[in-house]
């Protein structure tokens, strides 16, 4: 099915899906904290616009509520919480060194190809106009996972986690026109609680190691220096919670 045979609204959905994918790549390569948070907010906004467009095309009214929820939580509340945290922890001008940025981005492109391959059977079965974007939503999820496994700072990992959730939400919207509203509300509430828990986790990490680099959690503290020994158990239990 050629793109030009779709209606302008459906074309716009596909355009916004591509932009959501693009923001995922930007987040993967963004080393500074505050722009990273803003990029995450942009991803939420683009997704909310795409959801509204899907609602217009499909006529499902409850998608408007999902879009409003996305705007309130993922464009407003969570970025604001994270921003306030980074200011309070004095992390807002920090940068993180990524070892091989080009390799990371090429790996991301590989994940997009992989998710296209995964989504191909679904695309053949589905009859929706938005079926091509399923691959994009899987890719957003996998890119979030890649971000969580490659990036070192807690902030980047939390944003990777949230962007995985974005991918899930987007997959639900484009493949089945949204999850049941009660599930969506539950997930939104979970994400909000998670972001508050992450805040506590940040503070403990900061107190124990004077840095947000989660690599410190992998080290046995006896092996290095005895100073943070007293607080290490508290930090690791918080890590398990989060």
């Amino acid at each position, binding site marked *: *099915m*050629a*793109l*030009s045979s779709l209606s*302008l609204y459906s*074309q*716009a959905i*596909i*355009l916004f*899906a*591509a*932009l959501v*994918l*693009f923001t995922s*790549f930007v987040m993967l*390569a963004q080393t500074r904290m505050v722009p990273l948070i803003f990029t995450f907010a942009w991803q939420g906004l683009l997704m909310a616009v795409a959801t509204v467009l899907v609602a217009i095309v499909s006529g499902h009214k409850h998608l408007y509520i999902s879009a409003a929820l996305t705007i309130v939580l993922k464009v407003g509340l969570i970025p604001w919480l994270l921003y306030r945290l980074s200011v309070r922890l004095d992390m807002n001008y920090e940068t993180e060194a990524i070892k091989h*940025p*080009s390799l990371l*981005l090429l790996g991301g*492109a590989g994940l*997009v*190809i992989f998710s*296209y391959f995964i989504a*191909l059977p679904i*695309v*053949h079965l589905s009859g929706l106009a938005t*079926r*091509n*974007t399923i*691959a*994009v939503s899987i890719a957003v999820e996998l890119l979030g996972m890649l971000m969580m496994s490659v990036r070192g700072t807690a902030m980047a990992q939390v944003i990777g986690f949230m962007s995985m959730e974005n991918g899930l939400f987007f997959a639900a919207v484009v493949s089945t026109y949204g999850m049941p509203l009660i599930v969506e509300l539950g997930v939104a509430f979970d994400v909000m609680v998670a972001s508050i828990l992450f805040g506590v986790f940040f503070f403990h990490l900061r107190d124990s190691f004077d840095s947000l680099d989660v690599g410190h959690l992998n080290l046995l503290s006896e092996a290095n220096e005895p100073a943070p020994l007293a607080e290490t158990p508290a930090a690791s239990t918080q890590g398990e919670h989060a």
Partner: protein
Amino acid sequence: MNSQSIAWTLAAAQTLLFILAAPLLAGWVKRVKCHLQNRAAPAVWQPYRDLAKLIKKNLVLAENASWLFRAVPYIVFGATLLAAAAVPLIAVHLPTSAIADVIVLVGFFALARFFTALAALDIGTAFGGMGASREMTVAALAEPAMLMAVFTLAMTAHSTNLSVATETVLQAGLVLRPSFLFALLALLMVAVAECGRIPVDNPATHLELTMLHEAMILEYNGRHLALIEWAAQIKLMIYAVLIIDFFFPWGIASEFSASALSVGVLAVTAKLMLLAMLLVVWETVLAKMRLFRVPQFLGFAFLLALLGMLTNVVLETGG
């Protein structure tokens, strides 16, 4: 006169117009830039005066300059001329557009760059070698991004021929293609790098540490320098027209009537003026990057082109 000879006459006229208008575009860019930076602006005709002055001057050659050094300005100008002939400026389906598709166009630029680098090494000064090495570094990164962006467009048009691609976009009307958006951004970034504009290179500077392109042609003067500078102006115009042809071709003449052609001239003039203003704003807002950040800049351009290609496959053709 039969239609075949009319088409060839038109093609020759278009190429001539392309070459003659290129210094005007450069003058317009300089003038708008001066206005934007609160400086007294030279006339738009200044590049013509500069070229005329350079052509009249006596040639001074270094003692150890070989035949290659003397031949290179003509090779560069010739390659750029051929490239200009292949790009549709005011009308599509001219016979010269069959000379070269986009890949050959990239090849013409590579040829010109290769010989410029050789000539820079020929005299044996330190600047020439440094400039050549920098230019080749930038080119090696810009070329894959450019080709990837071009392939994205070619996949939609099912052809790498410029005329056919332009006509496909023209006939499709308004289609929101994410791949075109990404390819446009990638092509803009590559064009900035290839034409030696800020933030990759500064065409107005002769400060040794920041030069890229200028370092290579430091030994040239007289009519040789005139040819090389003219070729650089044509190259800027080729990139601008390429971007217009691929993404905003509306107004270009698809038949050879007087009214369609005049609309084509007006449309392309207006679009070039706007694009030049965009370039000026971009150059005024940004500062020149360190050389070691250029690979990141071009890596981002490559990623955009790659995303364009992927979205084309994943989103626009599937099912």
